[in-house]
């Protein structure tokens, strides 16, 4: 990647307003080294396009139909350099927490845009577009305090599923992934279980085991299993192991 001068920077523009995309397109026109490989008007399209085109640089609006900018970023990972483009200044801190290259406030002029582009190039010239921290983890830490996850976006190839947390039965850690069980289906998501745990409302979801988070509403009963371990039986009959620490947490919750 150190010979960036030979290859073009491939960029994707994501904004639901055609005129907003037009501004960026126009400001990119004097830059032959940058090639716009896709334009998207909503979050689903963005995930699909980015997954397929694997661009180097993404201009990303925040408030859009289907998925907001942060949710898009959570799904596509940090393979690309991100420049947020929005009329809202209140997301700036969050944007930098997810290692965005820059944060452009609408309306912006050519100078400001050039500066953002410069930063993006610098970022692309250094080895990796951003730190090796998975985007999902960043997105979880960047979540505003006292606001828990209401829905979990999951990507399967270029397809996106939205799982409202109320429909989530339990989550199981599988290596680098979590398997989310909802309505009898399992969805794999690349995210450490601990960061999912942190994003979920602790009064509704409990880590009952090193590898399991359960939706407390789904727990039908907890039975002893073996000498000093337990199993949680869900309403749909699924049995989940409960560790000793998990059992203590469960008891503490039930006693409250």
């Amino acid at each position, binding site marked *: 990647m150190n010979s960036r001068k030979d290859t073009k920077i491939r960029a994707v523009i994501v904004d639901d307003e055609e*005129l907003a995309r037009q501004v960026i397109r126009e400001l990119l026109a004097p830059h032959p080294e940058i090639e716009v490989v896709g334009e998207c008007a909503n979050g689903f399209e963005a995930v699909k396009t980015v997954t397929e085109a694997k661009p180097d640089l993404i201009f990303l609006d925040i408030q859009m139909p289907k998925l907001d900018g942060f949710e898009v970023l959570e799904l596509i990972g940090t393979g690309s350099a991100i420049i947020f483009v929005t009329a809202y200044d209140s997301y700036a801190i969050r944007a930098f927490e997810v290692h965005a290259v820059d944060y452009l406030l609408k*309306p912006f002029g050519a100078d400001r845009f050039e500066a953002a582009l410069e930063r993006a190039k610098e970022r692309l010239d250094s080895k990796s577009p951003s730190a090796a921290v998975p985007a999902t983890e960043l997105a979880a830490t960047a979540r505003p305090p006292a606001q828990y996850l209401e829905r979990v976006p999951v990507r399967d190839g270029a397809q996106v599923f939205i799982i409202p947390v109320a429909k989530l039965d339990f989550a199981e850690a599988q290596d680098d992934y979590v398997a989310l069980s909802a309505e009898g289906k399992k969805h794999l998501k690349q995210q450490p279980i601990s960061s999912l745990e942190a994003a979920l409302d602790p009064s509704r979801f409990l880590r009952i085991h090193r590898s399991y988070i359960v939706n407390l509403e789904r727990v039908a009963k907890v039975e002893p299993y073996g000498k000093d371990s337990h199993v949680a039986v869900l309403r749909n009959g699924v049995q989940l192991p409960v560790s000793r620490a998990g059992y203590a947490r469960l008891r503490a919750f039930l006693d409250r």
Partner: protein
Amino acid sequence: MHPILSRLSRLALYLLAWIPLAALLAYLLAATGGLSRREAISMSLPLCLLYAFVCLFAWYSCRALPSGRSTIGKLLEVHLAASLVASGLWILCAELLAYVFTGMSLFPGLTSRLSRTIPILLGTGVILYLFSVSFYYVLLAVEASQEAEARAMEARVFARDAELRALKAQVNPHFLFNSLNSISALTTSDAPKAREMCVLLGDFLRRTLGLGEKSTIPLEEEISLIHAFLAVEKIRFGTRFRMEENIAREALAMDVPPLLLQPLVENAFTHGIANLVEGGWVRLDARCQNGALSIVVENTFDPDAPPRRQRNGMGLLNVRQRLEARYGDRASFNVRTEGDRFSVSITLPAEREGRAT
């Protein structure tokens, strides 16, 4: 908090007021019981000091039995019984005191002379106690009326606050920023259109600024403000939205608070249309019925849209508070979600230039 016990200065004043009472009691004791001046004063001073404190406790019974909530008979019964008990105890103390004085051979024969004054003591005790009771009731009434006034004041301040907040929120800055961004896009691609949008935005802003000073405007004027807003959004959203209007002729002349509906239409955009890939519609209905003006703003939205973290429901809350503050029970505000439709229904008194129709 006891009105007298809570402050030392008040307690001192109160005790001072008892000095003439003590003098009066001394006179009565001397006149009816044939006590000497020294005897009468020696008896009346400590007795009055004691009774001054006993009467302080009448406050608690007054507060426990507010005059408005019990019948007069019940009040009389309770306080008369209390006064008799207090008075009886007082007489016992008087007897004890006289006994002590006699025992110390200060005033020989005082006990027997005191027994002649018992009816006087009883009467005085009852009257003084009941007097305190009525004093406290007057105090409580004054306090209650002051409190009511403070509450009314608070309500007025709250109403004005709601108005001010509403006026401050009249132009959503993000609407402005996004519109400016659209203009910035148009300047190179379609300069005449950019100019048109500047004019439309200017028109909308001028109208909103002017309206802030008026207390009510005809519905027609509010609707034309909405049209100015929609003209700007039309350029931003292109064909992504459709506006339907269904407004009864007689409703157009009715008074509405300025900028009551515009925030609702704006809400329909930020929380509805903006989240719909294929676009959607906003419908505005207004009609008069039975002396009320009823208005409905309905729009389509995506139930699975990403949760908005901004100004969520602020516009709606503002409109509701303004209606409440201005019309109280005479206005209603209802929000309904049904599938992919969101609607806000408002009714307010149908008035024209402040007069009911």
